[in-house]
């Protein structure tokens, strides 16, 4: 029962609204994280996802809460794409009681098992093996779920990523390895650190279906993901998707990026997946500017509320320090 014009994009207007809302939520959330960080309200360090929204949201678009994702140090976007509560996230990032991990995790360890979000991961290459395990659960329980491991281009060189791909092929489990290639691992370019011609090609040689898509094109990501989902849900087969992304900001908040020229940075920022999306849906007259702007306002308000709640919340009580190490000890 798709709305008129949706055929082109194979999506209903509701779906498009949800996708846009998620992308915009990520963008505004991250911009606010930068601001709160600068204001000293966020302890430690944080890595924002600005510029890569279409990748995470596209990948998660057809996932349900029952499907799994494992994420990275740059995980806020994946959380939001998978439906995590932004207030719970903001509380967590500020280290507050009531955060998604009760303040014990922080930016690099947000998890929400009720949403199938198995955790950001501050160890580069940490998630792929874990995602294989979640896929093994799905296969064993024959419930048709899939499990996604997000990794960066940098993580694609870590031994664990390779092991996980081979293991998924051998065990035939519905794991989907998403390599978000934003061109850099910290301050080193993928063109230097990835010895292979391409991440997707290298992955394909492991014996699974692998494709590389424009990660700034939400619709291209969704399409690739649908093929992977089909393989995963029906045949328990693993897949790889490389999403070619751009990193608008530094590696971490505050990174002065002396290794990127002004021209490169400008070119990267000129590619805006959210603008792309707006243009596409307007072109086919599925959503108009007013509606999109309306979503923007709603998202903006939601984030403001989250921030205020987080700022007002107390830190966890000291009695929490030794709790929840074990279920029972």
């Amino acid at each position: 029962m798709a709305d008129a014009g949706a055929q082109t994009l194979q999506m209903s207007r509701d779906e498009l609204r949800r996708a846009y809302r998620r992308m915009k939520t990520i963008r505004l959330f991250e911009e606010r994280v930068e601001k709160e960080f600068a204001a000293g309200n966020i302890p430690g360090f944080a890595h924002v996802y600005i510029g890569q929204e279409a990748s995470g949201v596209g990948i998660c678009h057809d996932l349900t809460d029952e499907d799994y994702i494992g994420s990275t140090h740059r995980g806020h976007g994946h959380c939001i794409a998978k439906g995590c509560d932004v207030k719970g996230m903001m509380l967590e990032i500020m280290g507050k009681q009531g955060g998604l991990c009760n303040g014990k995790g922080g930016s690099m360890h947000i998890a929400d098992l009720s949403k199938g979000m198995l955790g950001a991961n501050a160890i580069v290459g940490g998630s792929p093996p874990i995602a294989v395990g979640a896929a093994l659960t799905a296969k064993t329980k024959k419930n048709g779920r899939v499990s996604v491991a997000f990794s960066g281009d940098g993580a694609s060189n870590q031994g664990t990523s390779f092991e996980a791909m081979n293991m998924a092929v051998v065990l035939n489990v519905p794991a989907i390895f998403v390599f978000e290639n934003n061109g850099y691992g910290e301050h080193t370019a993928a063109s230097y650190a990835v010895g292979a011609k391409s991440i997707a090609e290298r992955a394909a040689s492991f014996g699974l279906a692998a494709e590389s898509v424009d990660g700034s094109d939400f619709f291209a990501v969704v399409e690739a993901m649908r093929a992977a989902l089909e393989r995963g849900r029906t045949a328990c087969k693993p897949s790889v998707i490389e999403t070619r992304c751009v990193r608008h900001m530094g590696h971490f908040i505050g990174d002065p990026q002396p290794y990127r020229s002004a021209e490169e940075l400008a070119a990267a920022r000129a590619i805006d997946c959210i603008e792309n999306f707006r243009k596409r849906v307007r072109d086919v007259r599925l959503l108009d500017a007013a509606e999109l702007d309306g979503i923007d306002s709603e998202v903006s308000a939601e984030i403001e509320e989250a921030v205020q709640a987080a700022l007002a919340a107390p830190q966890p009580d000291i009695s929490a320090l030794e709790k929840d190490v074990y279920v029972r000890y």
Partner: protein
Amino acid sequence: MPKKSYRQAINEAIRGEMRRDPSVIVLGEDVAGGQGGTAGVGKVGNIFGVLAGLYDEFGPERVIDTPITESAIIGAAGGAAMTGLRPIAEIMFADFVGVCFDQIYNQAAKFRYMFGGKAKTPLVIRTTIGAGFRAGAQHSQTLHPLFTMVPGLKVVMPTNAYDAKGLMIEAIRDDDPVIYMESKLLYDVEDEVPDEAYRVPFGEANVVRQGKHVTVVGMGLMLARAQAVAQELAKAGIDCEVIDPRTTSPFDEETLLESVEKTGRLVIVDESPPRCGLAADIASIVAEKAFKALKAPIRKVTCPHTPVPFAPALEDEYMPNPRRIEAAIREVLA
């Protein structure tokens, strides 16, 4: 009661739990054996035969052979545990943990805490420990200190077939990640082992010999050596109390402290190098919490600060042996 080997006892525990609970799976290298081969699968049942017959009973979906890829094995087991299975993963020799330690100590062991108590990771990692097998520096280590130091892990070291079964059942039913260490040299040792399921709880030491002159703690293979020396010394009128902690994390401080309160003397026999080892750990607990009762220095009988040598003469000297154990006991009584 039927006599069964340590190996059989472990097998029986796993088999029973797999029958009882379909979410229990086994994965690792050659846990079945023969995948892709020309004469059928499942005739190996792990390199030490501990899992013999499981593949035949439970099939490839529950007895899963993997490539040689320990990070993926443990990572997958952790991920599976967090999402509803109860995996028993195998690291053939504890020495191999170096290639997958991250997935143990930074991932599985930390999920619950990092995620604010919302995750549950009922994972058992089986592995083998111990020198004396003439297997050289990379196949002979006893790495319980490495695991004991990790918050979020539980660490089990059975010393006999009875405990082996009960502790394995406990480990599988436990909701936290557990490292279960099998002493290679104990596999063939028999003991009375009931056919039915029973649990040996974690954190409860076993006082295997009552005594009043000195407390002797022995872990894994070293327990038997400590016991033998105690028996020998009894003839000379030296009355040792011998304690088997069974699990090093949680650790039963109470039983230990009570014993030292009684004897006033402590010797710890541990098969691992001395620095930051379990002997040091136990000594420090007593030096802190039962200091007043102590009548003599606490003696650690450990391996030297060296890798495990290959030559049998050296390896035998590397491991704590009766001569060194006896000397230490006599020393604290002098």
